């Protein structure tokens, strides 16, 4: 009998469902009496809705209801004085319009076609107000966020870089980027009486969704059932419960039938967050032998006027490199736009692009190889928190990546290597992302046939959570993976954190591990052995012998106090080889090597896929993706999949994912540190730096499209 082990390349346990079309996503459940909800977006950017003529819509065939600010049934959590007020936009709760595309009505009809058409029949009268969407114009209106952790950081002396012998001071710009998961955001909601509601909704965290909906409607959380078994990608866009999900529940209550509300691709540009437009200034000062003496990192990014969004854009500069002086400043600029949301490798990816680009610029100024420069400023402890790393193998990442990309073939002189008409260049970009672990619970059940079922209210937006959990359970229990089923995406299961911040395997994996250990201990005890005996035992046999129909337990798991004494991060070094065509400005990534210290790797196959996928996201960030805004009208002009360019197959070369694969001794029993974010962090800089090495053109405003190469 083959024993599946942590680290094996196991095929996805839900692979068969996904390749046969059998995997059901939230918009695909056939609920009796289903109706269709379609949102009507505002076409002004700031102001009020003064009147809505819904008569034609209500007369259109199949229309059941039109919800507007003038007739919306109240959502308890939206009301002043609510016990737990809902944060953010409260749809239809008042007639204010804060951004273009904000929903101002919801049409419910018998079919999708009828709802969609009726939505076009509503005539709205507005009182428009002046608006501000232009980030650059409003740059100086940036404010330090309310949350304390975003206040200015200073270690040593602020802006010390300015007095160093060698100085780099540059601005770097990232445009707004859209998560654009392939699955459209969708919620199907239906009520059972007045106090129980069920949702099939696209969610990265069913527990969070349950909490949000119960808060909005003043319900007992136990009466809010969330299903989100398959999620067609999210990348952060489903970390929170959005106003349109509340609206679907509101509508279902009104029409007393199930309502399915699906956003259009265009609506996903305004209603489910995005990586905010950001301008960062990096100041680096170094001695002539390449020792950093000062790092300054400032960031301005956009947020909404109605809700503040923040992320860790500048934090990386506090700890990634040794420097006696480091300071950061972080500000947000409120605009008449939808609120941003964390997008894969959130602020860290943004910050890493700026810092790692500036470091590359410094390497050319100093005439020191970029890897060597990083080695000269390597940190063996966390300079920000003055703590030891729980584990850090970034040096090993540099070394292995350099070997695999063929760093020795890199020319220190930009624009000097060719393959026919194309210029060749190499680049490196690094990053770090916090390794987290949250309290999680798992229920484990052993059945007489020797199979094991485990449940936890986690999600799987793509990384293969059930597969990794199965592998951890198989390894811990010492039984084959095909004897184990792992269930997720159901709020009635024991609690788990939202799938975000790269913490799922660390958190849920620990709970699964601990539940398996607890089960084994129980069985050992039943078998009359010492609880911690590691010798193989006959699971089913013990049940039969004790005449038990099954054995079930629920296990909580969380980090110990020890974790507070360490600084815990995943680290990455990405390497790119690119071709640049000097005449056409085309850039092709020819080779990409992603090396990560993410602790122990649970499933080599899915982990590699995750690394490759993050790298693809990074290639999109650096070369193709930009949500383009027209500030005259306050609307996106490329809010669709044809004009917002997610990389396609032809953009992507073979990508090599390399794991250091050494368990972190502190964070959790398996030793995993997380991959989801780190897989993207550093990629953009690696490619941009390679573009410079190839062409001698330093593009500091992403994405690096052909026009920018030609005009640089």
């Amino acid at each position: 009998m083959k024993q599946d082990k942590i680290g094996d390349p196991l095929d996805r346990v839900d692979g068969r469902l996904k390749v046969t079309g059998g995997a059901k996503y939230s918009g695909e459940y056939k609920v009796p009496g289903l109706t269709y909800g379609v949102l009507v977006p505002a076409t002004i950017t700031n102001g009020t809705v003064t009147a809505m003529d819904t008569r034609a819509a209500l007369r259109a065939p199949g229309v059941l209801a039109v919800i507007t600010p003038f007739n919306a049934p109240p959502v308890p959590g939206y009301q002043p004085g609510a016990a737990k007020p809902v944060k953010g936009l409260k749809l239809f709760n008042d007639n204010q319009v804060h951004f273009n595309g904000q929903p101002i009505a919801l049409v419910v009809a018998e079919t999708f076609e009828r709802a969609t058409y009726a939505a076009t029949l509503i005539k709205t009268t507005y009182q428009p107000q002046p608006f501000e969407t232009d980030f650059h114009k409003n740059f100086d209106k940036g404010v330090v966020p309310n949350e304390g952790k975003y206040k200015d950081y200073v270690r040593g002396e602020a802006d010390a870089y300015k007095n160093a012998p060698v100085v780099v001071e540059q601005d770097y710009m990232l445009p707004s980027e859209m998560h654009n998961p392939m699955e459209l955001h969708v919620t199907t909601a239906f009520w059972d009486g007045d106090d129980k509601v069920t949702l099939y909704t696209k969610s990265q965290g069913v527990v969070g969704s349950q909490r949000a909906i119960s808060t909005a409607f003043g319900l007992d959380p136990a009466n809010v059932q969330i299903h989100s078994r398959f999620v067609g990608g999210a990348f952060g866009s489903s970390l929170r419960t959005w106003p349109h999900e509340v609206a679907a529940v509101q509508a279902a209550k009104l029409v007393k039938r199930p309502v399915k509300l699906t956003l259009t691709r265009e609506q996903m540009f305004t209603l489910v967050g995005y990586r905010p437009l950001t301008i960062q200034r990096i100041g680096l000062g170094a001695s002539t032998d390449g020792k950093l003496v000062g790092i300054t990192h400032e960031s301005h990014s956009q947020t909404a006027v109605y809700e503040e969004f923040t992320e860790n854009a500048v934090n990386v500069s506090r700890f990634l490199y040794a420097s006696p002086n480091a300071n950061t400043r972080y500000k947000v600029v409120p605009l008449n736009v939808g609120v941003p949301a964390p997008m894969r490798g959130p602020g860290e990816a943004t910050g890493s692009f700026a810092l790692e680009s500036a470091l590359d610029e410094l390497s050319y100024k100093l005439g020191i190889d970029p890897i060597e420069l990083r080695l000269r400023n390597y940190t063996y402890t966390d300079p920000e928190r003055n703590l030891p790393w729980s584990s850090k193998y970034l040096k090993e990442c540099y070394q292995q990546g350099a070997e695999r990309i063929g760093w020795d073939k890199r020319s220190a002189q930009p624009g000097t290597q060719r393959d026919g008409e194309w210029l060749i260049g190499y680049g490196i970009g690094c990053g770090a992302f916090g390794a987290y672990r949250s309290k999680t619970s798992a229920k484990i059940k052993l059945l007489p046939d020797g199979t094991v079922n485990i449940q936890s209210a986690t999600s799987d937006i793509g990384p293969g959570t059930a597969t990794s959990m199965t592998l951890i359970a198989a390894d811990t229990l010492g039984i084959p993976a095909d004897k184990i089923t792992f269930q997720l995406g159901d709020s009635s299961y024991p609690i788990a954190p939202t799938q975000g911040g790269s913490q799922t395997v660390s958190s849920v994996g620990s709970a699964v591990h601990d539940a398996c250990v607890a089960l084994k201990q129980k069985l050992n005890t039943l078998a009359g052995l010492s609880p911690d005996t590691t010798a193989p035992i006959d699971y089913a046999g013990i049940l039969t012998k004790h005449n038990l129909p099954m054995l079930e337990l629920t296990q909580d798991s969380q980090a110990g106090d020890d974790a507070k004494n360490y600084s815990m991060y995943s680290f990455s070094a990405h390497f790119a080889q690119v071709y640049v065509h000097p005449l056409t400005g085309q850039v092709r990534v020819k080779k990409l090597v992603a090396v990560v210290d993410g602790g122990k790797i649970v499933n080599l196959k899915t982990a590699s896929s995750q690394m490759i996928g993050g790298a693809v996201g990074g290639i999109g960030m650096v070369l193709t993706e930009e949500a383009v805004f027209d500030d005259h009208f306050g609307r996106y002009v490329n809010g669709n999949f044809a004009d917002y360019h997610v990389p396609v197959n032809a953009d992507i070369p073979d990508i090599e994912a390399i794991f250091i694969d050494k368990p972190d001794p502190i964070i959790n029993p398996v030793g995993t540190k997380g991959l989801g974010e780190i897989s993207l962090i550093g990629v953009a800089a690696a490619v941009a730096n390679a573009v410079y090495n190839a062409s001698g053109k330093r593009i500091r405003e992403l994405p690096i499209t052909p026009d920018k190469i030609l005009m640089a």
Partner: protein
Amino acid sequence: MNPFQYTRSLAAAGAIQSVLKEPHAHFLAGGTNLIDLIKMGVVTPERLVDINPLPLKGIEKTATGLRLGALATNSEVADHPLVLQGYPLLSLAINAGASPQLRNMATVGGNMMQRTRCNYFFDTAMPCNKRSPGSGCGALEGINRMHAIFGASPACIAVNPSDMNVAMVALDAVVHVKGPKGERKIPFADFHRLPGDHPEKDNTLERGELIMAVDLPAPAFSQHVAYLKIRDRTSYAFALVSVAAALKMDGNMITDARLAMGGVAHKPWRLHAAETFLKGKTPGDDTFKQAAQIAMQGAKAYRYNQFKLTMAPNAILQALKTASA
């Protein structure tokens, strides 16, 4: 989509009559552009007249060249042995456009009829003279990175998005149309029009006229051809600039040349002066650069598409290099 009626047509004459009967009736072929426009509310038809059953799918040799039925799909044309052999430029151009799935649906006639991709045209919440005459041009002072550098008017600076059209105009194709007044031929170069004061009119078809076929002259440029499309990602994106280049060579001398550009004008943009210049010349960077310079005469850029003044001549140079290599 707004509700509309549907008529399946079995004969061209009947289809034409059906469209003429109602002011908001449209022919439906592959649907890849029209259905999208209806979904976006840009077109609100009362009736669609499905012409797919019409016998217009053939690709046949004629006495003077090759006839492409208006309903032959883009894939069928691009992959046809006679096209690959005699008109490789057309094959290259078609395969540079859209995606395999869309090319399997889109037809020759439909590709010619596709509307601009200008986002102000597609977004009914913004002004557009092409969609809604008299409402203004949002792109003129707006985000005009993708827009025209040749032949635009204050009313419209949109570009024709087709790749196929660029090759067709370079190859001197001729369009056969049938309408209420009978049949007529339109040189491909005259099929699409510049916006002028009537950007709502993409082409010179009259109401009720149906494209029946496109004729290609005898193969003359089957060897030294290139289609270069510069875009924001490697595939499945509209052109920033594209160039169709075809050369006839006698030893080391260019005896004839065809050059056209996409992504630069309201119609596929033929570069006659540059072609004339190239005739009798020896291929080389200097010659090609001069040709490119000639081709760029009269170009005018807007706020966000200044780069096209550099990219377009570079693309011409690169396409000529590839074609002559």
